[in-house]
């Protein structure tokens, strides 16, 4: 067999692949052919660690769907450069050079945004040949400084995301695969950028100065040769450079420990947003001064001018970056990118909202010895994990929140046991320990409240992710209803306990009628939950009534029943007993007797409207909460009307059908009544 192999090998005369010092290329096609003839259809070579399952990973060489090594245009980056794919300078004509540089900047920004959305770095930002060979651009100050900042920014973003550990192992986002992210001297990118910015600022001042002064500034070489376009190009460049500078500053500020840089980061982000606005507004000028752009397809272009950028080739990296498949990806269009930015870093929820949520932790506990208790340490860790999870994309977030439920439940039980162990006999507690008891109770309530909050978020995210089919809405709203009831209960208790503690500090005040009244007024947060409860209950009953009166099509499945689907959807909640005593049968019992006529009489939607109205007065300083209350009111109003229409006319007109759409609220549906 070995002899046969030697005979079959032939030394190639000429290949396009250069041989290295230790390697020689040999053509083995004849060998492979004879090997194929030896096996019949259906036969497979078995090895110790090679079976059918392993065989599935096989690639077919030269199959364009699988073989990412297939040469598209250039075999290597060097070949591309030799063929003029990324010239430096881009053009001898300075005006064209500037125009093209701006195009490269715009396209890189679009690539960066595409990367943030989840594509690989290799096929987005590093499809830029200029970035792949950092030293080539050193003679072109503008391009060079910009490339350095891009590399440094990408590196910083990867570090931040990695440190926060909010990504999954195979997340494309953080994989660099040997791409040149560590450019030599990239840390000095800002000083380079500042120098370039300074030069262009002076060029801008020079071109705007009246001709009399211009003689003084004559030693200032203009940016490019067409004086009419000088101002426009200078401005276009400046806003792009400044955006990059402030974005990088925002990143470095956010990386400062203990959250010290957050306020500064916020300011940088605000500047970024205003610079983005300038960038957007520069597009008219750039399009008009660009040569040969048609109006067609302008929406999908990745540059402000509408011209194709020079120096990009996504296929060059295929071989360098291990698992990137031979697939073209679509870079975000320029317009979409600018609308997407709006202050959300990494496309995820703002860090600030996430951190404010953490600040809800009871203040009192912070300085007490009780912190040293091991359970409190675990609780702290649980909270941090939850915050990290809240920073991730909705799909991942929901999965992780669901899994967390049991941890929170166990946490509660452990704390409760620890509490009983410490303070078994309430009557014999000395004055000092009384405070400890209060803290413990407060924390227990807080843990329960958080648990139900996570449960409600888990259910709500299902709507955003489109996990529920309309035939499942009834059971989902029912479960939301039972969870929200518990949540509002715990929230209310927690607030009452807080008030209690507040009163005990300081001198005892005589109970005035006003104090008593204030005590019994329902806190706004609870009111907010209550109107949601009414909506959830209303929707549950309406859907159930429609089904009971055969106005909604419910087909029977051949393989399972509604019970299996209930079990599947709420498995994680049931496992964690959130809430207790809740099952498919309690769902059935609650909904079997729902009838439209009863619902009209006892109208949950009207309740929701009433409570929402009351709640609005307490939230006058909170525009977000007000907006949401208005949405709730709209859903309630529309559903109330729909309910009336169906109950009056439905029985007489069988063509009347109700469908449920999310037209006013992201997760509370509005009933739409139509004739089919």
């Amino acid at each position, binding site marked *: 067999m070995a002899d046969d192999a030697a005979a079959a090998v032939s030394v190639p005369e000429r290949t396009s692949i250069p041989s290295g010092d230790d390697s020689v290329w040999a053509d083995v096609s004849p060998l492979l052919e004879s090997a194929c003839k030896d096996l019949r259809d259906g036969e497979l070579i078995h090895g110790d660690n090679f079976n059918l399952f392993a065989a599935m990973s096989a690639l077919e060489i030269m199959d364009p769907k699988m073989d990412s090594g297939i040469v598209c245009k250039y075999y290597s980056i060097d070949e591309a450069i030799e063929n003029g794919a990324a010239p430096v300078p881009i053009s001898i004509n300075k005006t064209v050079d500037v125009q093209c540089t701006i195009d490269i900047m715009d396209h890189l920004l679009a690539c960066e945004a595409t990367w943030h959305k989840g594509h690989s770095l290799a096929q987005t930002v590093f499809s830029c040949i200029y970035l792949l060979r950092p030293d080539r651009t050193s003679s072109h100050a503008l391009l060079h400084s910009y490339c350095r900042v891009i590399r440094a920014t990408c590196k910083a973003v990867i570090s931040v995301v990695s440190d926060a550990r909010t990504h999954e192992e195979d997340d494309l986002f953080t994989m660099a695969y040997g791409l040149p992210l560590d450019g030599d001297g990239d840390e000095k990118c800002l000083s380079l950028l500042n120098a370039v910015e300074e030069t262009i600022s002076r060029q801008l001042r020079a071109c705007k100065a009246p001709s009399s002064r211009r003689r003084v500034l004559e030693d200032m070489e203009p940016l490019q040769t067409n004086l009419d376009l000088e101002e426009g190009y200078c401005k276009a460049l400046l806003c792009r450079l400044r955006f990059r500078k402030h974005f990088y500053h925002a990143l470095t500020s956010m990386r400062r420990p203990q959250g010290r840089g957050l306020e500064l980061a916020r300011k940088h982000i605000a500047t970024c947003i205003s610079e983005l606005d300038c960038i957007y507004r520069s597009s008219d000028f750039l399009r008009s001064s660009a040569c040969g752009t048609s109006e067609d397809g302008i929406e999908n272009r990745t540059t402000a001018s509408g011209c194709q950028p020079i120096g990009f080739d996504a296929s060059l990296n295929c071989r360098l970056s291990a698992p990137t498949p031979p*697939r073209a990806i679509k870079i975000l269009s320029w317009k979409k990118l600018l609308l997407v930015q709006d202050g959300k870093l990494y496309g995820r929820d703002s860090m600030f909202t996430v951190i404010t949520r953490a600040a809800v932790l009871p203040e009192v506990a912070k300085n007490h010895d009780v912190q040293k208790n091991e359970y409190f340490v675990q609780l702290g860790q649980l909270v941090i994990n939850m915050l990290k999870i809240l920073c991730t994309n909705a799909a991942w977030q929901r999965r992780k929140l669901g899994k967390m439920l049991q941890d929170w439940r166990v946490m509660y039980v452990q704390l409760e046991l620890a509490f009983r162990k410490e303070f078994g006999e309430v009557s014999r507690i000395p004055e000092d320990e009384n405070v400890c008891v209060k803290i413990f109770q407060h924390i227990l309530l807080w843990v329960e409240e958080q648990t139900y909050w996570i449960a409600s978020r888990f259910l709500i995210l299902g709507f955003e992710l489109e996990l529920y089919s309309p035939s499942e809405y009834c059971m989902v709203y029912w479960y939301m209803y039972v969870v929200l009831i518990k949540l509002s209960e715990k929230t209310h208790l927690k607030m009452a306990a807080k008030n209690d503690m507040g009163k005990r500090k300081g001198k005892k005040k005589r109970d005035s009628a006003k104090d008593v009244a204030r005590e019994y007024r329902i806190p706004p947060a609870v009111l907010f939950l209550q109107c949601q409860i009414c909506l959830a209950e209303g929707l549950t009953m309406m859907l159930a009534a429609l089904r009971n009166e055969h106005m909604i099509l419910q087909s029977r499945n051949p393989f399972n029943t509604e019970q299996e689907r209930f079990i599947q959807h709420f498995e994680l909640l*049931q496992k964690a007993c959130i809430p207790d005593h809740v099952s498919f049968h309690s769902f059935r019992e609650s909904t079997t007797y729902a009838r439209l006529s009863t619902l009209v009489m006892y109208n949950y939607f009207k309740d929701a409207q009433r409570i929402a109205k009351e709640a609005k007065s307490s939230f006058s300083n909170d525009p977000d909460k007000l907006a949401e209350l208005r949405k709730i009111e709209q859903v309630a109003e529309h559903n109330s009307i729909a309910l009336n229409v169906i109950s009056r006319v439905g029985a007489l007109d069988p063509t009347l059908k109700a469908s449920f759409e999310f037209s006013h609220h992201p997760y509370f549906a509005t009933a739409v009544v139509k004739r089919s």
Partner: protein
Amino acid sequence: MERKNEEEETETGKSELDASQIEYVSYGGEHHLPLVMSLVDQELSEPYSIFTYRYFVYLWPQLSFLAFHNGKCVGTVVCKMGQHRNTFRGYIAMLVVIKPYRGKGIATELVTRSIKVMMESGCEEVTLEAEVTNKGALALYGRLGFIRAKRLFRYYLNGVDAFRLKLLFPCPDLYPSLPMIANKDESYSHNDHIPHEECCELHQHL
């Protein structure tokens, strides 16, 4: 592992073709393999090597079915089953019906046959992934009792999200009684059993 289904079951199908004219055959051997491969290759964009097909049809031939019309293969389903963590479950890997034959319930019939074999073989559940944009597949599986258990962010290489669809078979003693957590109230009942009559009724439908 990913699976792709580009089946579109529209409500308005051409009624020239009678459902009884379709012949359904269980995977019979090597002679069926090229038919399965060419159908899948032609309709789906994911690249599969021949080994992928062999893996499924060699190890679980009883789970793959082909649909013929006048001797021509017009549709196929390829599946597997096995122990996954602590459940025994079926997995639908590929489902294809060629365009002119869509909308006639062929895909539903292919999948139904496969699921029946899985159920009879002791599977507790069946699972698959489908693109969130594949309305036809989602409707088909929804009608069979599958729920969308999870959304998988950017599951497919082209960046599209996927749903993990799961069908849970009814079974009285499937769920372990509830936790380990000490609870004051002893008298809770969680996973209630299906009343016996309902269970029988289900089997009768099949």
